[in-house]
């Protein structure tokens, strides 16, 4: 086990609001990585744009802080180009489920071996408090002046509907459990969704730390994560929101292991050179 200190950036200015749940996620992430012995050099965090998406700036790692909503395609490609890297795609709920919604559903189908951490504060933080796809009905914002009227996006139910290989939810109010879930998601072979409830102290005065505490509970140990229908039922619960691992499909092979590009070659792409002899033969055949 490494020391989580090695991820520390020293005395930096963190742009999050005091009291934000993002701090907890950052701390837990470092610990999870340390406990899994993942060296910063072998880690790539891919993020989009938003408050959550700033996270790679606050720990030592390789990172790709790309466009709003577009972390998953970049993360998939990075993992595919070099499967030896540990790749985490991490952003906010608006980023992953709003702007990035199409990549969310198709990355689940593609099933690359990456972990997808979504800071779900049920609001757009960075742009100052508009509704996010997960905002609850009635949530009033400067844009949703009469309250949100859209059905909240249910990432877990959708992931289960798409037969995702790993589907879980955490609440950063419980750091220990969040860390354990992060670790499970990272070591899971295949796409692993971890939706993390994260209070936004500046713009979400409804879904506060207290609210999350009161409105969540841990899934019973008896729940069999291989049971898709049971997982779906849990995911649809809305009175109290379950936390923990909802669903695991162990039968799936990750994308990188299925594609033909790795059938006859196993080096990462950066080490490859085209086979000149074969290529000349191919040319000559025309």
């Amino acid at each position: 086990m490494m020391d989580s200190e090695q991820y520390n950036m020293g005395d930096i200015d963190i742009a999050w609001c005091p009291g934000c749940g993002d701090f907890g996620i950052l701390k837990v992430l470092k610990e999870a990585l340390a406990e899994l012995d993942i060296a910063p050099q072998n880690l790539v965090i891919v993020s989009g744009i938003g408050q959550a998406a700033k996270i790679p700036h606050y720990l030592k790692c390789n990172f790709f802080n790309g466009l709003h909503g577009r972390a998953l395609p970049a993360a998939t490609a990075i993992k595919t180009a070099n499967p030896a890297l540990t790749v985490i795609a991490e952003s906010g709920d608006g980023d992953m489920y709003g702007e990035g919604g199409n990549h969310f559903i198709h990355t689940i189908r593609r099933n690359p071996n990456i972990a997808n951490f979504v800071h779900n504060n049920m609001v757009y933080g960075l742009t100052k408090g508009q509704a996010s796809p997960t905002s609850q009905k009635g949530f009033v914002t400067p844009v949703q002046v009469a309250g949100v009227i859209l059905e909240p996006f249910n990432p877990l139910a959708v992931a289960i509907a798409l037969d995702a290989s790993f589907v879980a939810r955490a609440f950063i109010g419980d750091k220990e459990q969040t860390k354990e879930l992060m670790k499970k998601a990272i070591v899971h072979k295949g796409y692993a969704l971890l939706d993390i409830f994260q209070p936004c102290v500046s713009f979400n005065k409804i879904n506060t730390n207290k609210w999350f505490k009161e409105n969540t509970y841990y899934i019973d140990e008896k729940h069999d994560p291989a049971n898709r229908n049971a997982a779906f039922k849990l995911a649809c619960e809305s009175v109290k929101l379950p936390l923990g691992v909802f669903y695991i499909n162990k039968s799936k092979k990750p994308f990188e292991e299925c594609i033909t590009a790795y059938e006859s070659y196993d080096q990462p792409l950066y080490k490859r050179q085209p086979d000149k002899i074969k290529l000349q033969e191919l040319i000559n055949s025309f």
Partner: protein
Amino acid sequence: MNATDQNDFSIVLCGQAGQGIQTVETLLMKIFKASGLNIFATKEYMSRVRGGLNSTQIRVSSEPVRAFVNRTDLLVALDKGAIEHLSKRIGDKTVILIDEKSVPDKADKLVKIPLSELANQAGGKIYANSVAVGIITGLFDIDQQLIEKQLSSFFSKKDEDVVNKNTIALKSGYEFGKSLVESNKIEIPALKSSDLSGDIVINGAQAVSIGAIACGCNFISAYPMSPSTGVLVFLSKNSKEFGIVAEQAEDEIAAINMAIGAWYAGARAMVTTSGGGFALMTEGVSLAGMLETPIVVHLAQRPGPATGLPTRTEQADLELALYAGHGEFPRIIFAPGTLRQAFELTAAAFNLADKYQIPVIILTDQYLIDSNYNIPRLNIEDIKIERFITESKADYERYEPTKDGISPRAIPGFGKGLVAVDSDEHNTEGHITEDLDLRVKMVDKRLAKLKAIKNEVVAGELWPGDKYKNLVVCWGSTYPIVKEALTFLSRDDTAMLHLAQVYPLHEDIKQLLQKAEKVTIIESNATGQLAKLIKLSTGFEIENKILKYSGLSFSVEEVTDALGNWLKEKE
């Protein structure tokens, strides 16, 4: 019927989508080329899977041919509608072969052929294509053994019965074709054959694809879109053999973000798309500009706006390619005019993208993509893969300041350092910043690269030489068309200036333009986009423009006429 005395012969096959003209085209190209005749083939087709009317032109010649001509020497009408569809390309001398069963009401000068009859005799309607191949090769009296060899290699993956039936169909067609010549119903020019065994026949999509693989492309992510899909198909087909990751993305936005991610992790990646798909990639192009991550984009143009004419040709996305992406950052745009250039410039795109860490766009169009002709075998030894990846030290900084603006590029997992890239304005380490002085430095750094880029611009090609009074400017796929038109006009005071790199423009271009007494430009668009770019870059205004935007390529005759008229003006 009258014989043509030219040394090339233009055959047009026309029928419905789904009738298999593609097969006839491919087989004929193989057979003619094997028999030592130069060939050129191009097609125009509708955006549908069955029905409608598509046509393929095959020119067969003693000399290399590379351009679309309006002239049709022989029209093989596989459908009644063909004659009306091609009315503008049917002249007095055009011989029309048509199945005796589908002669249209008002039509004269037709030569009836027993197409369906012979096909049925061979086993059914689907053998009509082989009958057609037979008839045409019979007309040309091609060596039968040679034909059979091509036929069997073409059908090599089918079962014996299929091969046999096709052979029968072809043979009966062949006999009929020969009889047409023998009975003087058709006269075929005596074409000189030569040894073309060192040549290959490819099309634009293949040229781009081979160029990419040759220069180390090992990742392609794309969303299907005519006419760009061929490149995705080619790389997918060869994915296993060459270890290429070829992934069909959920949309074009995913495609470009994947490709940028792949480059970041050390791959050599490209996307292939057309106007509408590229429009969706605009934000991604800007991302590459900010991250300073290389990206190669193959943009195969088709007529717009919006869906436009999906299977037709145009050169109207130059300005989009030039300005796509918010904010300011350098880029390179190629517009190959020949298959060889498509091969070479696609390869070059990978080296330059890697070197300057910028987007490089290869602008082709449906005409180039779907045009085939024989060229000397491409030699992959001509391509040098240049990589610009450094192994990182522990204190590596992705955006280290340098004189020319190019920071050494490391990739994650190779070296002791960390590789951080950021779409926000960032400091030298790749961390987000709001330091406005640093902002200015970073803008300057990114734009500084343009200076070095300008030192290795592909020069415009003057043809036939640099002595001219009249200059004809063109870019991209019209190259061989303009060249043949000029050959036809054979004026020693007139030259073509073809630009295969359209951005940045070579600095000599201004001088080349000023040297001329008269300049015109040929573009397949409605507003003269290159002319505008030339004006912007050089201050030189080309007032005379020859523009076409019907969706069909210029023909040699059209250009010849237009240039002829232009040359006559004020003379």
